[in-house]
């Protein structure tokens, strides 16, 4: 059973007052996330990430399609018992303290007040809120509210946790702590679905990612799959290469760069098998051979541009 599953999930909004027209915030999103996965939901601003999360929390209703969490339709109270959610830029009740807020939420999950206080204390320690836990939330900085937001998402020890831009507003130390927290959740068997436009977070944490652009799913897969080995060819570093040998090899190379001390970096296209090139090196010595691996950023930029161009072409055609 998938932890999260969406099929053809679509959301249109009406924009414009006098002549309302539909704005496609999310278009036919189908994806599934397995139990225990750390899944990165990536996309530029306005791609539809928050819309998807709101649909999964049933804060908004889909125009078409449907979604399931832990095998039950979204919005099911029994499922809500087993999930946690951190909204983007969370806001809580100003007049409550961090501790009171967490106890308030814990009680919604059926915890007694004393059990709620125990959980609140543990989680506030975990997210780095110290003595400030007894201050009213109106006195908290944005980063501290974000930490409280993460704590409240975990108050019920969820099986699936949804984090919308969890690193937003955090300082470098806070970001590292949240990364470590997500990894601890993964080790505990919790499924983590987090949206972000910070690619380094996804590269550090995710087993699989989806890239969303203009409301459409542009790519989905494992990090290795998306940034697949050898997809951009190979880099062969050699020394002792003579000028005439280099001239002979040039048509088979993408690029040749002199590194100094008689060393050259030769970039091979994916179509060239490195082993076939070795006999033609004319006695030059091989220093290293490495696959040219695309970064998640390369994939992200490529997919977002392609989807944007596709949407533009469709718009012009219609």
């Amino acid at each position, binding site marked *: 059973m998938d932890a999260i599953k969406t099929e053809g999930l679509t959301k249109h909004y009406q924009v414009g007052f006098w002549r309302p027209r539909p704005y496609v915030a999310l278009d036919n999103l189908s994806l599934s996330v397995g139990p225990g996965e750390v899944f990165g939901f990536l996309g530029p601003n306005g791609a539809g990430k928050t819309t998807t999360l709101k649909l999964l929390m049933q804060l*908004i209703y889909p125009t078409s399609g449907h979604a399931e969490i832990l095998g039950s339709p979204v919005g099911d109270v029994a499922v*809500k018992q087993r999930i946690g959610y951190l909204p983007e830029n969370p806001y809580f009740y100003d007049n*409550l303290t961090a501790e009171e807020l967490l106890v308030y939420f814990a009680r*919604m999950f059926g915890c007694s007040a004393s059990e709620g206080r125990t959980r609140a204390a543990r989680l506030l320690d975990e997210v780095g809120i110290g003595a400030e836990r007894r201050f009213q939330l109106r006195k908290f900085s944005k980063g501290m509210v974000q930490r409280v937001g993460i704590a409240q998402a975990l108050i*019920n020890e969820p099986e699936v946790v949804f984090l919308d831009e969890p690193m937003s507003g955090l300082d470098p130390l806070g970001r590292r702590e949240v990364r470590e927290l997500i990894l601890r959740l993964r080790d505990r068997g919790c499924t983590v679905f987090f949206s972000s436009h910070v690619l380094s977070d996804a590269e550090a944490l995710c087993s699989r990612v989806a890239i969303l652009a203009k409301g459409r799913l542009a790519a989905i897969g494992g990090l290795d799959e998306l940034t697949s080995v050898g997809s951009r060819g190979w880099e062969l570093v050699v020394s002792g290469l003579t000028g005439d040998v280099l001239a002979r090899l040039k048509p088979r190379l993408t690029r040749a760069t002199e590194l100094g001390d008689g060393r050259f970096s030769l970039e091979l296209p994916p179509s060239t098998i490195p082993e076939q090139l070795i006999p033609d090196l004319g006695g030059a010595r091989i220093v290293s051979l490495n696959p040219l691996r695309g970064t998640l950023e390369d994939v992200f930029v490529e997919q977002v541009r392609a989807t944007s161009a596709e949407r533009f072409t469709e718009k012009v055609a219609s």
Partner: protein
Amino acid sequence: MRSIAIIAGGVFRDSVRDRIGYGLVFFSIFLMAASFLLAQLTAGQDVKIIKDLGLASASAIGLFIAIFFGIGLVTKEVERRSIYSVLSKPVTRTQFVIGKYLGLVLTLLINLSVMVVAFYAVLLYLDLTTLDGAKAAWEAPALDPRMLKAFALIGVELMLITATAIFFSTFSSPFLSVAMTFAVYIIGHFGEDLKNINSIVKSVVLPYITKAVYYVMPNLSALDVKSAVVHGLPVSGTSMMLATASCMLYIATLLVGSIVIFSRRDLK
């Protein structure tokens, strides 16, 4: 039921700590105390003035809290997005609306109780410091328990105004919600005049319209017994019960309407 109680408790705790709420209750108590000083300037009317001002200030301050806090209950949560965290917990939108309503009603009733205590304290002081001969001129005793009937009906009215405020806030802007709730309050107090408008206006169509408005709007004038209790006139239990029952029905209708609208709404 548990979720409703938790949400209601949250509203109560939040509003108890709200400085504006405190300010309003203290202002009401100040008005009651001030009415005592004003009463010193009049001969024989002192107790009546204190009762009039006390009941009016309790009603006005309660109305202010019911409208402004009632509208904020839903709109503020949606605007500030604090509702996202609440609705992702095992809480339905129905439980959310009912919990919010009950939380504010609890706050209002406790505020009203504080005002009742302050009101009777002022009257007790007056009673103790007034000579028996002067008391003979009073229409009703200073510590007349019948005034509790007026306070009880103010409580019912505030419950209805809170439900009205929540209802409007589920589909319109805060400004419009305030305007519409206040309009319901005003029209509700002129219910009898609307019903009998044909006796003062010569029109064929208007009486039908005003009668329709009379039947749609709550009859708040039936809850207003302030004048009667101040003058020591009897207020029948039956009329109080009927007025309360019709208001409860109205409150239930408004809450069902609020739930239906709010349950379908996209929280953008």
